[in-house]
């Protein structure tokens, strides 16, 4: 017998079609390929239009700061001639405190224009605050579905703070226990209310992030004479990477290396009631980063606009303890007290800049707001209460969910390369799985997979041949 869960999920396509205000089926080209650029431009807004929407919404134009003290810390431990300049885009200066405002501003604008009465989003992160804030400005009703508690009703302080800020902006917050059925309830509510689905993964949202790449290219050119050589991006669902990289490219910064950065949470299960409160990062981690990069269409839209493998040049990971160290350092030597998750890319930047020439320029493209609960001290105190060991030492001894090791010296901060070739292979395997048995990918499918993995036809064909043998 079909469960309540299955019954709603079976009607998901029809409900989402009404709630997204956009028919995705027109972009489908085959069981594998779809017209990505066609989908991205279907909303009809130019980049200038989006800048206008955001400027009126109080979003964007955030300060670009050079972090001279942090650069000097890097140079103090670099080989002669090494130690790149580090910059940060202070996205915490947005209305609701994070780059997510860029994402929400376009979605909520579209919802208002199309005449929806309200909006719904499923998010435990800063996106909830952004949607709630923009909905308040546009006079729309707003429901946020959050995974907040474990089965004992104990909440991550960082997420409890997100509940508070959403409610402060007048949103109805549904706090839930652990489980991916968060999306089931969102779909059920969309059906019930007829509200707009302000998905993190729609083309509206991801287009909204392109302005961040544009600002970085323009502001770095004004400051240093050229776009950055490297842009480091905290990576979870892949929208941040996708939108920023697209914006950089649209601004002509085609040589900027795109570096995705995540906290290593390997070994922790994202749907586990036991593991839920044993992680000290609720976003920006590999638990989202890897599955979404290797299969973006697992998202709540038929086709995900966030397709990070198209843009990633390198994917670097760091440990929770390393990010907490850098978060503390940022306050103490740069006077910039910001939330820990947004400093994931900053931690990677410290490791990366050390090995780059002094004239290289590394932009960390976001910060996020901080406050009670959403602070590295709160997260560490909570980890200790949950039985996670916190100690000083060598971060290579880090064990997600068991031990957080805070470095003793900045030299110990060493980002690790995640194998992007392996991610591409995994993506191709997942894409092929969508086609019926016996389907033979066409030349157009191969070209699509090559674009979707930032590789070429020969590389995709080699992966397909290898998968066949296995």
């Amino acid at each position, binding site marked *: 017998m079909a469960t309540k869960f299955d019954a709603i999920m079976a009607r998901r396509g029809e409900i989402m079609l009404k709630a997204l205000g956009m028919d995705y089926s027109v972009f489908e080209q085959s069981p594998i390929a779809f017209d990505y650029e066609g989908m991205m431009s279907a909303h009809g807004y130019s980049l200038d239009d989006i800048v206008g929407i955001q400027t009126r919404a109080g979003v964007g134009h955030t300060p670009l700061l050079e972090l001279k*003290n942090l650069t*000097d810390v890097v140079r*103090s431990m670099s080989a002669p001639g090494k130690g790149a*300049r580090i910059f940060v885009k202070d996205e915490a200066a947005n209305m609701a405190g994070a780059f997510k405002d860029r994402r929400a501003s376009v979605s909520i604008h579209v919802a208002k224009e199309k005449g929806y009465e309200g909006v719904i989003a499923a998010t435990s992160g800063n996106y909830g605050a952004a949607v709630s804030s923009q909905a308040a400005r546009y006079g729309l*009703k707003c429901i946020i579905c959050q995974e907040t508690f474990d089965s004992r009703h104990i909440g991550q302080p960082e997420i409890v703070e997100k509940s508070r800020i959403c409610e402060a902006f*007048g949103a109805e917050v549904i706090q839930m226990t652990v489980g*991916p059925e968060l999306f089931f309830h969102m779909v059920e509510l969309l059906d019930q209310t007829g509200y707009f689905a302000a998905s993190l993964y729609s083309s509206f949202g991801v287009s909204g992030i392109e302005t961040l790449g544009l600002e970085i290219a323009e502001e770095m050119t004004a400051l240093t004479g050229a776009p950055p050589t490297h842009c480091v991006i905290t990576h979870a669902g892949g929208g941040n990477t996708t939108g920023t990289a697209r914006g950089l490219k649209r601004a002509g910064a085609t040589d900027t290396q795109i570096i995705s950065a995540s906290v290593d949470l390997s070994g922790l299960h994202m*749907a*586990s009631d036991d593991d839920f409160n044993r992680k000290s990062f609720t976003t920006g981690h590999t638990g989202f980063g890897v599955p979404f990069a290797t299969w973006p269409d697992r998202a709540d839209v038929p086709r995900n606009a966030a397709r990070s493998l198209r843009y990633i040049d390198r994917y670097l990971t760091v440990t929770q303890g390393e990010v907490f160290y850098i978060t503390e350092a940022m306050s*103490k030597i740069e006077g910039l007290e910001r939330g820990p998750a947004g400093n994931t890319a900053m931690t990677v930047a410290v490791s990366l800049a050390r090995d780059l020439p002094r004239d290289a320029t590394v932009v960390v493209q976001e910060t996020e707001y901080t406050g009670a609960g959403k602070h590295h001290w709160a997260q560490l105190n909570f980890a200790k209460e949950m039985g996670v060991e916190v100690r000083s030492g060598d971060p290579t001894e880090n064990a997600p969910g068991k031990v957080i090791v805070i470095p003793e010296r900045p030299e110990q901060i060493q980002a690790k390369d995640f194998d992007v070739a392996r991610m591409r292979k995994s993506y191709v395997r997942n894409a092929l799985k969508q086609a019926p048995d016996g389907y033979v990918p066409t030349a157009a499918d191969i070209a699509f997979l090559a674009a979707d993995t930032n590789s070429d036809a020969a590389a995709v064909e080699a992966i397909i041949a290898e998968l066949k043998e296995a």
Partner: protein
Amino acid sequence: MTEETRCNAGDWVEVERVLLEPADRSKNLPPETAEKPLRMWIKGFAQAAGVVGGPMTVETMTGRLVEGTMSAINPGYFHTFGKPIPELVHVGVDLRARLADYHAAQPADAGGGANAQGGER
């Protein structure tokens, strides 16, 4: 301080309900999650007088009526920063000392550190 246990109609309260019993949940869950119900909490205006632990219907911020068991009256937020973290208290002092040493070691005319590069452009 005693917690309020009775509310009047119109008070701001929280209700709890089960969204999915274990048997109705997604099939792809680790056992420790699958064996538990999916629960939710939501706040709104009480539609009648009631007691904590008893049935309650609330009108939420979007005007929906949601039934459940009343779990709290006027629930607050008590998340904090907590105590300073002993493993982090040395970071500021260490890095400031490191920067002072680094800057002192840079030749005055050779560009030096990022902070010795002169004015902003």
